[in-house]
């Protein structure tokens, strides 16, 4: 037993390894193995990390949507919606376009915000259904938004009235400049129509929903515009 202990000494010199240095504890075999593994790891990381960053980069890159003119202020009344086409994504032709329903703020149906701001004088409703993103259309006779895919129904202000959608229709920031109505970035609303950073369809915002479905860094609401509306 004493001999075995001697062989198991941590010093290579004690273990009779040829060419051992005084006080050396790492064998050359162990050193080469570790060096080879570390070098392989570094080499793999050198191409894997940039490649993954390249693929996942857009998730963390903020997307800037320019303000777009959709008409003159007198084009939009408070009692019905006017469809307008905006460019959600530039440079990809028709597939980057989207329809938005625009009307003037209507104090009879719209809640007046405690802190009324410049983005609320016109209401712009997104046509992306909050079930899974099919395009809704506004039916004037019924004063409802209706989705053709799975039967989602929304009332005049975009709140869910029936079907599978999980939250009211998204909206866009609007503002008025030189007598023109401009449409800006999108935001999401919960069932009290409070503003939230944009979420994708199918992601509820009431209760724990806003924490289960966090907003992503590539699309945020305009800072300081949250709260009740």
């Amino acid at each position: 037993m004493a001999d075995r202990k001697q062989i198991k000494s941590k010093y290579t010199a004690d273990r009779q390894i040829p060419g051992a240095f005084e006080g050396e504890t790492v064998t050359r075999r162990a050193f080469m193995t570790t060096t080879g593994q570390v070098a392989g790891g570094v080499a793999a990381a050198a191409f894997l990390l940039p490649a993954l960053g390249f693929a996942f980069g857009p998730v963390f890159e903020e997307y800037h949507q320019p303000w777009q003119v959709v008409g003159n202020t007198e084009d939009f009344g408070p009692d019905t919606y006017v469809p307008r086409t905006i460019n959600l994504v530039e440079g990809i032709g028709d597939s980057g376009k989207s329809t938005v329903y625009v009307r003037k703020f209507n104090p009879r149906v719209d809640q007046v915000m405690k802190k009324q701001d410049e983005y609320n004088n016109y209401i712009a409703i997104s046509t992306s259904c909050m079930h899974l993103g099919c395009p809704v259309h506004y039916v004037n006779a019924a004063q409802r938004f209706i989705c053709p895919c799975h039967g989602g129904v929304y009332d005049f202000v975009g709140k869910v009235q029936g079907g599978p959608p999980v939250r009211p229709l998204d909206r866009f920031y609007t503002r008025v400049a030189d007598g023109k109505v401009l449409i800006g970035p999108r935001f999401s609303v919960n069932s009290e129509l409070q503003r939230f950073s944009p979420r994708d369809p199918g992601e509820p915002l009431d209760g724990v929903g806003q924490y289960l479905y966090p907003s992503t860094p590539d699309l945020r609401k305009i800072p300081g515009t949250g709260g009740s509306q």
Partner: protein
Amino acid sequence: MAKIKVPAPPVPDQLKPKPKRPGKTYGPQTPVEHGAEAGASTVGWIDERTSLSGGARWMMFRKVPKGTNWFYTLGSATMFAFLSQAVTGVFLAMYYDPAPKGAYESIRHINDDVFLGELVHGMHKWGSSVMVVLIFLHMGRTFFFGAYKYPRELNWVIGVVLLILTMTMSFTGYLLPFDQRSYWASIVGVNINGTGPLVGPYLNDFLRAGPYFGATTLSRFYSIHMLLVPGAIAALMGFHLYLVARLGTTAPPWLKPKTAEALREEEVAA
């Protein structure tokens, strides 16, 4: 019976088989004999340098249990469906343009103008459904024959991963024609991914390369569809097949193991 001697046709001297020279009796002598041996000698040349024939024999000439039937071919059928998808996909890629403004037009060009384009596109389109159906039949066979049990659990797990990868192929391939159906189906599909709590929103942004279906969404789907996932499928399929050869196949469940006569008498006595 008297043999009729037919006179030999007049053959030029060059083509007449030469008498074997003393000491050179082994192996092919004439160009014709060399030609006849060409295949075997090529295989021999390769095998001498790689020893692949042992592995090939191990893979191909396996013992299979009694009762093996047509249901056991569903896995191979799935593999051939995949190979068909791979080959037609490679050739479709020669004409396809994964850009939002060019994709629909390039598919129209394949269908309407390219020689056999509609056939090759159709094979790829319908073949994808065939592959999914075959996978489920293969999976059903494995399940109902109990072929997922020890020691083949890992092969079942690999098979499930292959099923998920095939679904990924179907999902990413659906967008590529870039017509209305593709576009809206992919929007719905991406948003279904988004309903996964916590990771869903990030997964969506990864799939779309941003908050909206943008300029690179289509090429991203295309890259996943034709490079990333097929590579993974081919590799896992190879491992799946290796395990089939390594572990052997199961007998159908209706064949009960037979007890030897001598032992059976013991059983009865006990």
